[in-house]
């Protein structure tokens, strides 16, 4: 079977891009990574994602697929050989989609908001919301993981990819703001899961190093300051 061209438009520091990289790696799919600067969108990006003009974009045999959650599901559908990313049971699949949507719509946006928050009160309000969310995710881990190492059970699955990709910026935010968001006492299952994920070879290969992300964060902050 001929391997069709697989290209990924993205940038190393974007967790939505990291998700797609994780999915491709787990399926052992070779691809060309095309670095796209989110502050200076390339022609190839605009051509392949004219509606939203956002990364990541997966281009498979010249056909673009956009939006990270949709891309990960596409990868699972288009490459049925190899480990399944989504659960095989329809109900477990619905749960996986639910928690992925929750992470994206409700929880993950709080991380960037926390970094950008000014003032103690604003920060504390966001930290409280993040903590509430982590407790919900801890419960989700118990239900979805069914006592195993990952949300996907014995193997890395959809929620592991979606939530796991947020860990890099979560660590940076903890350092920058000076707060521990994910801790052993409040959410022990999740804390252990996070340690397991960041020491996993596939994640280590894809997720950006904390040091590099911190440097990027500082560059962005300096840029924002200089332009105001």
């Amino acid at each position, binding site marked *: 079977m001929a391997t069709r061209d697989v290209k990924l438009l993205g940038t190393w520091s974007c967790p939505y891009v990291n998700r797609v990289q994780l999915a491709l790696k787990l399926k052992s799919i070779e691809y060309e990574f095309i670095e796209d600067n989110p502050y200076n969108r390339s022609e190839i990006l605009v051509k392949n994602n004219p*509606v939203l003009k956002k990364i990541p974009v997966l281009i498979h045999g010249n*056909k673009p*697929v956009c939006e990270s959650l*949709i891309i990960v599901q596409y990868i699972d559908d*288009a490459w049925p050989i190899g480990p399944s990313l989504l659960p095989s049971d329809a*109900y477990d699949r*619905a749960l996986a989609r*639910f928690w992925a949507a929750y992470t994206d719509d409700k929880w993950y946006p709080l991380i960037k908001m926390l970094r950008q928050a000014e003032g103690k009160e604003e920060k504390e309000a966001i930290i409280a919301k993040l903590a509430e969310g982590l407790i919900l995710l801890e419960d989700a881990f118990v239900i979805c993981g069914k006592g195993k190492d990952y949300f996907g059970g014995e193997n890395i699955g959809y929620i592991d990819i979606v939530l796991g990709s947020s860990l890099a910026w979560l660590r940076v935010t903890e350092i920058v703001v000076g707060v521990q968001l994910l801790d052993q006492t409040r959410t022990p299952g999740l804390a252990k899961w996070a340690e397991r994920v960041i020491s996993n070879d596939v994640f280590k290969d894809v997720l950006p190093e904390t040091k590099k992300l911190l440097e990027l964060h500082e560059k962005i902050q300096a840029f924002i300051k200089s332009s105001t």
Partner: protein
Amino acid sequence: MADEVILLDVDISLFGMRVRVALAEKGIEYEHKIEDLVNKSQLLLEMNPVHKKIPVLIHNKKPICESLIIVQYIDEMWKDKSPLLPSDPYQRAQARFWADFIDKMVYESGIKIWTTKGEEKETGKKEFIENLKLLEGVLGDKHYFGGEEFGYLDVALITFYSWFYAYEAIGEFSIEQHCPKLIEWAKRCMERESVSKSLADPHEIYDFVLILRKKYGIDQ
């Protein structure tokens, strides 16, 4: 063992309507429980503790939340009749992309039309029409978004049709004027019993919207 299917819902919810359409397409019998969103039932709070929203499908005591997730679940559980999602992975990704677009962009711009006034309302109208035009382009000359067969994306969008009357009356514009092919498509969908029996009455929706606008002083 017979399946027990319960839908927690509210008549005018375009999200709830999606689930009704999907269940009807599959010929699934279910108990339709109408919620009072001001006094949410214990059942709703237990079945959707995270968002406390409808629709919630309860299948053999297990809850599934979020309308598009529910529709996909229904399609996967009852796969022998009226498949909704395309079988081709790329077409499936496209259907999911546009359904997501509808939820984020079409829904938000629609909300702006009936919950705001002045410039914000006009912006909402402009964005709403642009978004519908994009979808009209996706439909092209096809019978349905799913091609020859009614599918996932048709389910995702058709329920908005019940809200068009309210958007048009408050926004003072005609959707048909801007998107005639989309309206043709909508009328085609309405010929399906699964759709005509599931969508709420547009006048009921308009009355509800007027009440809310008056309550929050948006109608001045």
